């Protein structure tokens, strides 16, 4: 097959490479592609078509069509004609049952008509419903192209950002000239590389001059001031019966086989061409010894009949106006169509030019330029017929999706007469070639059938990607932005079970959560609360700003004191809660929930952008480590580590004070999210471990989130976002006391309107009569109907009961009301409890 060495060939015969194809060893040379090496070795069938499983062979040798896709080293849909040979590659056919030459699924080609008519996706295999599992299994087996190995190797993909003044897409003559002309920082990309071009495929042109380029393992994201599109023209196939037979080729396929790889494509050829490309291919064929039996130049010869016939899917003869010519190669050339897709994506208009029968880009956006064939700068070609007939073979408009002329006519008959609808219904242009070889053909056929012209039919919307791309490349590296507390490594060292809470990793528990709960109740526990949002609000207007953001009062908060605060929106929704400590006349220290720190900070800044108060809002969440030391022994332990007076008089419940603990300056906040005497200590993050170690050395037992959730539930403390949702307001969540009389605050009107209209639901505490634990989300039922839901529930050893929070109808919200909660299909009695379950008066907190 390989001819004697000839000048200009692109292979280096001294450098052989051997790969494996279906068990056989195949050898090619440097400069070969896997496709050319296989062709040289005698392989003609490269794939089976999508729907009918017809044999397909090399068509374009440019990476434009679907015909040579195989699985290489486990990666499906690799185009062999552009995949360089390499040693040890393992190449397998895909989309076949059996082998490429004998594919059992090709039965669909014979009987396919009734089974796979156009639009069959939408209407076959639907009834009877009960057979769907069977259908599904079958469809999954035959659908799609190629298979991804479940144990496929993980490849590494990277993204690289580049800025250039000028990006030239396409390394043909026009592209290279444009790059040489351009000024500034210029970069040329080309799918095949070479000539100083970056090897990669531009996938699209997005807003802001963004051009992603697929370079295999790296996705380049170019931002270009100016983009020059030089994507060239695409050789167009002709539409006639048998136009998909193995042996039917585009001129470029012949050019590459003969000139680049020194391969003789076949013994006898026929050429049907609308332009010079076909004539050149005829010359190439003769040069390698292929007999050219007949050349039809559509520019001078008018034909009405054209058909290819074959045996077992391989070309054996061509019929031209009644004359049959035996051949094994047919070169078809329907002229070239500018590759305008990228331009259209960028916003260019595309116009039909009837004289040349092509679509050309016009009205380019400011920063985009088109040069060469892509701009429509093409030699004249004859305009071929929408289709030729002359036989009863299948006449393909779209070879990727196996859409025939008949399918298009049928879709039209069913009323899908606009190009966008016909495209979706027939799926023509939706396959791997992305319209390169079928878009123009579909439009032409619709125009002919509807007796309008191509301009009236118009084009479909061009969208990225301009060519297939691996999903892995688009996804890029997997970034898991994990937030670690300053004490993170202490938790790991202690063997804590870690869990995600938002972006944070936090200890669920260090061992037995129940034991950790007990430690807090009976002696001393310590929990890492560094994840709490922390915001400093400072300035002459700080108090006034807070007054307007919170429903309760802060202007009258004494220096050194703390108040609980809830933030609501103007719609009345509860958005976050936390504490506000006044550290000075103009200085407040605000804490938020762990997940709320960023949104609360934004919220403060947003309102202040509107109001313009003289107050700084400083997010210091990450600057500080924070721990909560809690339990009956908390004061004693703290006292042992500080010189400061921490007696109940000097540091009362809801006092805030700066003290030094174990040599670390801390802000001590005497507050309790858990129900025991407790201190929150906030210090510089870099000193967090030192403080933690000192507290643990004093006997504090580290406790995790799960024990904390039990402890807070015993106090019936609400967790915003868990016990509340977007419908919850201050009144329904049982916090009417927090709303103070003042001229304005965010959410004031909503609360007032709720007050007038009454609430529809109410959040209450409950205890189960029995010992069963309802799952969070369990339904509260009345007469078999759901009237509420459980949002939190835990077993509390301390209370000796199963306790929880639930939303119920306001009529059922009085203390002592009996409720029914459905657990696993059965209803179980519970009782509404409005006071906290543990230490209802808060004596422990104050002690």
């Amino acid at each position: 097959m390989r001819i004697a060495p000839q000048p200009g060939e692109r292979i280096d015969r001294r450098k052989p490479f051997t790969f494996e194809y279906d068990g056989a060893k195949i050898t090619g040379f440097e400069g070969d592609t896997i496709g050319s090496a296989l062709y040289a070795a005698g392989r003609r069938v490269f794939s089976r078509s999508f729907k009918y499983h017809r044999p397909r062979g090399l068509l374009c040798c440019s990476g434009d069509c679907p015909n040579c896709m195989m699985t290489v080293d486990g990666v499906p849909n690799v185009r062999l004609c552009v995949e360089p040979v390499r040693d040890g590659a393992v190449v397998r056919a895909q989309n076949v049952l059996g082998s490429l030459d004998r594919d059992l699924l090709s039965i669909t080609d014979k009987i396919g008509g009734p089974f796979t008519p156009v639009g069959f996706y939408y209407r076959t295999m639907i009834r009877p419903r009960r057979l769907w599992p069977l259908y599904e299994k079958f469809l999954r087996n035959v659908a799609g192209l190629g298979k991804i190995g479940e144990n496929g190797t993980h490849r590494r993909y990277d993204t690289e950002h580049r800025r250039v003044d000028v990006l030239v897409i396409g390394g043909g003559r026009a592209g290279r000239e444009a790059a040489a002309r351009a000024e500034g920082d210029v970069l040329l990309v080309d799918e095949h590389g070479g000539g100083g071009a970056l090897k990669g495929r531009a996938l699209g042109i997005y807003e802001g001059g963004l051009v992603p380029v697929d370079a295999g393992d790296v996705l380049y994201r170019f931002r270009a001031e100016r983009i020059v599109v030089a994507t060239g023209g695409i050789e167009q196939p002709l539409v006639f019966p048998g136009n998909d037979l193995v042996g039917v080729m585009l001129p470029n396929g012949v050019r590459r086989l003969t000139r680049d790889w020194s391969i003789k494509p076949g013994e006898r050829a026929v050429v049907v061409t609308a332009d010079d490309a076909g004539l050149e291919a005829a010359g190439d064929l003769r040069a390698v010894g292929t007999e050219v039996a007949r050349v039809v130049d559509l520019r001078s010869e008018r034909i009405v009949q054209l058909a290819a016939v074959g045996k077992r899917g391989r070309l054996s003869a061509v019929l031209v106006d009644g004359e049959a010519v035996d051949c094994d190669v047919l070169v078809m050339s329907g002229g070239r169509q500018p590759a305008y897709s990228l331009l259209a994506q960028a916003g260019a208009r595309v116009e039909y030019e009837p004289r040349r029968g092509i679509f050309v880009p016009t009205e380019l956006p400011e920063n985009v330029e088109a040069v060469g064939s892509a701009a429509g700068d093409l030699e004249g070609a004859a305009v071929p017929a929408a289709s030729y007939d002359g036989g009863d073979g299948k006449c393909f408009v779209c070879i990727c999706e196996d859409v025939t002329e008949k399918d298009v006519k049928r879709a039209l008959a069913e009323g899908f007469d606009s190009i966008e609808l016909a495209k979706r219904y027939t799926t023509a242009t939706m396959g791997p070639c992305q319209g390169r070889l079928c878009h123009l053909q579909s439009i032409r056929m619709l125009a002919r059938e509807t007796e309008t012209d191509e301009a009236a039919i118009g084009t479909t919307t061009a969208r990225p990607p301009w060519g297939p791309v691996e999903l892995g490349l688009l996804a890029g590296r997997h970034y898991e932005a994990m937030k670690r507390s300053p004490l993170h490594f202490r938790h790991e060292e202690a063997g804590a079970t870690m869990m995600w809470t938002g972006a944070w990793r936090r200890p669920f528990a260090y061992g037995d959560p129940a034991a950790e709960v007990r430690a807090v109740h009976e002696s001393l526990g310590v929990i890492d609360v560094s994840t709490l949002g922390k915001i400093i609000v400072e300035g002459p207007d700080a108090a006034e700003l807070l007054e307007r953001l919170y429903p309760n009062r802060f202007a009258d908060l004494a220096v050194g004191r703390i108040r609980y605060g809830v933030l609501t929106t103007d719609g009345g929704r509860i958005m976050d809660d936390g504490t506000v400590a006044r550290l000075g006349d103009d200085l407040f220290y605000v804490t938020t929930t762990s997940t709320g720190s960023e949104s609360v900070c934004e919220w403060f800044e947003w309102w202040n952008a509107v109001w313009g108060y003289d107050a700084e809002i400083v997010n210091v969440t990450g600057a500080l480590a924070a721990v909560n030391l809690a339990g009956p022994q908390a004061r004693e332990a703290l006292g042992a580590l500080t010189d400061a007076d921490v007696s109940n008089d000097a540091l009362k419940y809801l006092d805030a004070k700066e003290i030094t603990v174990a040599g670390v300056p801390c802000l001590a906040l005497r507050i309790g999210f858990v129900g025991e005497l407790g201190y929150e200590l906030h210090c510089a993050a870099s000193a967090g471990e030192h403080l933690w170690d000192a507290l643990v050395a004093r006997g504090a037992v580290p406790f995790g989130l799960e024990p904390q959730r039990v402890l807070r539930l015993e106090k019936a403390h609400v967790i915003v976002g868990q016990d509340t949702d977007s419908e919850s307001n201050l009144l329904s969540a049982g916090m009417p006391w927090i709303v103070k009389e003042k001229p304005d605050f965010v959410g004031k009107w909503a609360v007032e309107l709720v007050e007038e209209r009454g609430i529809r639901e109410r959040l209450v505490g409950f205890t189960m009569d029995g010992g069963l634990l309802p799952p969070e989300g369990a339904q509260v039922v009345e007469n078999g109907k759901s009237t509420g839901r459980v949002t939190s529930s835990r077993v509390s050893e301390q209370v000796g009961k199963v306790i929880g929070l639930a939303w119920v109808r306001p009529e059922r919200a009085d203390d002592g009301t009996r409720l029914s909660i459905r657990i696993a299909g059965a209803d179980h009695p519970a009782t509404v409890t409005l006071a906290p379950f543990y230490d209802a008066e808060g004596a422990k907190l104050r002690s």
Partner: protein
Amino acid sequence: MRFMSHPEGVEFASPLRHVDGIDDVSHLGKWEIRGDAHGLDGEVIRISPDRALVVGDRRPDAPRVYDMTAALAAFEVEGEDLMRRLTELDLDELPAIGSILRGTPALIERRGGERFRLYVPQELGHYVAETVVDLAKGLGR
């Protein structure tokens, strides 16, 4: 607000202490200035119209200063190619604060030649540094 500052006599636990392969400079003093930052000592990096970061050992003398030494992890890396795999920011327009690794905020400055310094929120420092080391491996380093 002494509690914002790292105390003397206590070891500075850098957020990057468990990452190998980067030059950790987290211990550098970092101060956020609100309002006018003109005429201050040390290296002044403007963050927004009324915010600036001053890097230096001494607390700058300004009315509104917040100690961010512990809040920001800081490290230095080499190579524009590596930086281009981290961020879309224009490396000719530094210092700048913007997105790295698809969504993590960072303040980036050039320390001469191809050396860059990144400041990132302390809580994300370990993750960022670890990822940067891995990206550098992808470039054969």
